[in-house]
């Protein structure tokens, strides 16, 4: 890799990291607004800014580094308790966060950064710093370019290795006379890294012989840090003449021994010089614990053994921590995953062919190999799919911000609560889910939640709630958006739909059907358009997007109580369980999730219904689509056909095919551009023998039949 490539790679990582940090920053800020006194949160904000600044500078994003510096400085002051957390500060920081994002996007070819706005935000921060302590405003601008040398060191940027040191700190007895408090030094060490500190007091005599103004204690310290040995030496800088400070490296790089072996107790004591080798040899091999024996024999004392034991424990903890972070995650570009899914798809197809071929050979050995391959293929498939799964929580946290901005715009007070943020969904589904969810939440806040005074008058809490829930339900994920707003008014919806010409004034609709009207194109129930949700597009787009994900939308509402919208989505987009059917020589796949049952359709049945694409399925009238006709497949219809009855949104629609072959695990291939606009087909799959089968888009086909339905339905009833 050339250095240019290395830099480019670094930039790539920086952009990715920065985006994650900005997300983290946002959620930390929003939490901070609720808990302004939470120092942990302040620390999170500071660290995010600190990292963006540091890495930004390293990769040549000087504008970002410079801009972020001001925010970092401010939060450093917040961290030190010099500036309080105020709503103003949160707002300003959120603005800064957005500006940083714009800067990153601009570097990626996005729109130009509004420099004036950057300046405005920076002066906002300067004002905050100046207002709270006029004198420090000067101070911070002076120190803007470097950091203190004797105070806390900043961690070096980039990856430095984590090293574990053993420090023996033995002050001279007259330490106190220099005004030094050794405990402060110990606390400072704790700030350098993870420290285990044990005091050794054997030098303290009995009270009558003790000069209490002398320091006769010394300390054994095990310290794990990535800040380097100089950071430790810095702690003792004032006392180096007066104290014996022995620093030994006991481990480099955070890995203790390649063969996962901890130093044995005896070895630790030996290397510290607390026991001699001969003494140690004498006791090794005895049945008791080494520590106990050494103490019993008076070779060393309990506190030295305790100290060595503490070192053992410290190292074990550090190691465990390291293993945890090592195995926690690995970052892989998503194209690689997509490629993997693709390959697994191919493998599934080939495997199906193998199984089919093997059946023809009826060879026992070959059969068992084929079965083994089948098992492994499924396992590989499931594993690959699970890699693409991501928790939906990251999307949820985005909505927190959305809701906050929305309610501020509308003068409403709305809280967002979430449940099931850990629910995992395919990465692509999550990405495509974002826009529909934004629309729904906007609608809930805009049309659902009432103004605070209206709520109070209605006997509700002035704070509205939007509750997001995610959870698994079989092969699907259910996502619910629930608000406790005013609910949908059936009469208003109905009147509106009539006015817009969506339905006839004399139409008889169930409650559910009326609610579904909000998904009709061009429907808006708000009295006047607001900047938030009244944009002409809206819930109809939501429905289309969800259906494109092979999902469904369901709506429930109670006047005055609230509305619940439920999205049902498949776990993954890449593979579906389908029902394989045949029309003449063509194969089609119907997603199994919508299939209810299969019934026969004879010529007599058709005649009985006067050729009207209606069938009587055990007493219920079910309209059907003749697939042959719809997709213009040549050839005569067989005497006995099959109706595959599907159900979408409580509507039952049959699909007439020649044969039902059976269930089929379908790896979805996207269609070429030419076929992309074919209505009613969502994709294709390759069968075991290499034949292509088309995957039917049932909701789309149903919507087509719906238009015919009403007229046919009425005729059917009169027939």
């Amino acid at each position, binding site marked *: 890799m050339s250095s240019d490539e290395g830099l480019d790679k670094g930039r790539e990582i920086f952009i990715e990291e920065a985006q994650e940090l900005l997300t983290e920053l946002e959620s930390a800020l929003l939490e901070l607004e609720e808990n302004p006194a939470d120092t942990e949160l302040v620390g999170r904000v500071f660290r995010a800014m600190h990292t963006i600044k540091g890495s930004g500078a390293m990769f040549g994003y000087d504008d970002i580094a410079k801009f972020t510096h001001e925010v970092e400085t401010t939060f450093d002051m917040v961290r030190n308790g010099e500036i309080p957390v105020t709503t103003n500060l949160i707002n300003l920081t959120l603005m800064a966060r957005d500006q940083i994002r714009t800067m990153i996007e601009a570097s990626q070819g996005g729109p130009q950064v509004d420099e004036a706005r950057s300046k405005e935000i920076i002066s906002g921060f300067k004002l905050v710093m100046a207002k709270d302590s006029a004198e*420090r405003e000067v101070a911070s601008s*002076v120190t803007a370019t470097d950091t203190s040398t004797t105070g806390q060191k900043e961690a070096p940027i980039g990856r430095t290795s984590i090293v574990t040191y053993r420090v023996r700190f033995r002050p001279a007895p007259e330490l106190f006379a220099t*005004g030094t408090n050794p405990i*402060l030094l110990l606390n400072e060490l704790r700030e350098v890294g993870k420290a285990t500190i044990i005091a050794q007091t054997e030098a303290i005599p009995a009270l009558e012989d003790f000069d209490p103004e002398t320091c006769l204690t010394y300390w054994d310290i095990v310290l794990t840090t990535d800040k380097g040995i100089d950071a430790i030496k810095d702690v003792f800088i*004032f006392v180096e003449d007066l104290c014996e400070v022995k620093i030994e490296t006991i481990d480099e790089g955070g890995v203790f021994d390649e063969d996962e072996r901890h130093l044995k107790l005896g070895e630790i004591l030996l290397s510290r010089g607390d026991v001699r080798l001969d003494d140690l040899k004498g006791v090794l091999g005895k049945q008791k614990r080494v520590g106990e024996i050494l103490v019993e024999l008076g070779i060393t004392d309990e506190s030295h053994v305790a100290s060595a034991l503490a070192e053992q424990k410290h190292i074990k903890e550090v190691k465990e921590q390291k293993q945890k972070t090592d195995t926690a995650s690995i970052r892989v570009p998503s194209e690689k995953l997509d490629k993997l899914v693709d390959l697994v798809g191919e493998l599934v197809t080939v495997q199906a062919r193998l199984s089919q071929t093997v059946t023809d050979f009826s060879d026992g050995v070959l059969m068992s190999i084929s079965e083994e391959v089948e098992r492994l293929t499924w396992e590989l498939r499931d594993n690959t799919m699970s890699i693409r799964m991501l928790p939906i929580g990251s999307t949820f946290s985005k909505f927190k911000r959305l809701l906050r901005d929305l309610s501020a715009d509308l003068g409403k007070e709305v809280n967002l609560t979430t449940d099931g943020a850990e629910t995992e969904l395919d990465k692509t589904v999550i990405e495509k889910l974002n826009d529909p969810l934004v629309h729904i939440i906007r609608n809930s806040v805009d049309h659902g939640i009432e103004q605070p005074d209206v709520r109070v008058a209605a006997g509700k809490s002035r704070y509205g709630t939007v509750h997001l829930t995610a959870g698994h339900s079989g092969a699907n994920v259910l996502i619910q958006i629930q608000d406790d707003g005013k609910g949908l008014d059936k009469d208003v919806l109905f009147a509106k739909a009539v006015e817009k010409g969506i339905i006839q004034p004399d139409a008889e609709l169930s409650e559910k059907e009326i609610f579904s009207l909000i998904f009709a194109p061009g429907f808006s129930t708000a009295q006047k358009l607001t900047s938030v949700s009244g944009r002409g597009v809206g819930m109809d787009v939501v429905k289309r997007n969800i259906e494109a994900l092979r999902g469904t939308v369901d709506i429930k509402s109670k006047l005055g109580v609230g509305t619940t919208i439920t999205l049902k989505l498949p776990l993954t987009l890449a593979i579906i369980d389908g029902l394989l059917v045949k029309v003449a020589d063509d194969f089609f796949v119907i997603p199994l999730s919508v299939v209810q049952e299969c019934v026969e359709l004879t010529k007599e049945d058709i005649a009985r219904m006067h050729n009207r694409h209606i069938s009587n399925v055990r007493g219920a009238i079910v309209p059907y689509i003749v697939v042959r006709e719809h997709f213009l497949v040549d050839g005569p219809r067989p005497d006995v056909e099959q109706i595959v009855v599907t159900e979408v949104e409580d509507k039952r629609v049959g699909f007439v095919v020649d044969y039902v072959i059976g269930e089929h695990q379908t790896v979805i291939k996207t269609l070429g551009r030419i076929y992309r606009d074919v209505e009613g087909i969502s994709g294709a799959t390759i069968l075991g023998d290499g034949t292509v089968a088309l995957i039917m888009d049932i909701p789309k086909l149903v919507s087509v039949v719906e238009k015919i339905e009403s007229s046919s339905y009425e005729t059917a009833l009169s027939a």
Partner: protein
Amino acid sequence: MSKTIMTVDDSASVRQMVSFTLKGAGYTVVEAVDGKDALTKITGAPVNMVITDLNMPNLDGIGLIRAIRALPDFKFIPIIMLTTESQDTRKQEGKSAGATGWIVKPFKPDQLLGVVKKVLG
């Protein structure tokens, strides 16, 4: 209760800067213009720490440190001396006189606060 720090320097601007920084960090500050002034002001005052220049008229920093350490009430308080790079021998003298630590001039406010935190907690 906020801790009290005494700043001793014949330069008004240094005193000003130290005082500003420390007050901003929540400390109470007592100012003295030289060693003699400092010794007068320290008796009876609840001083928790002293930051002193070394080169001063009347009583210099080294002398002040020795004198403070001789007072029973201030035997163990932290004393920080302000030195310049070239004053290494003076620094050694200061240390043997009983100084806790030092800050090299010129310094920045947060360096000052870092040192105060280091020795005063």
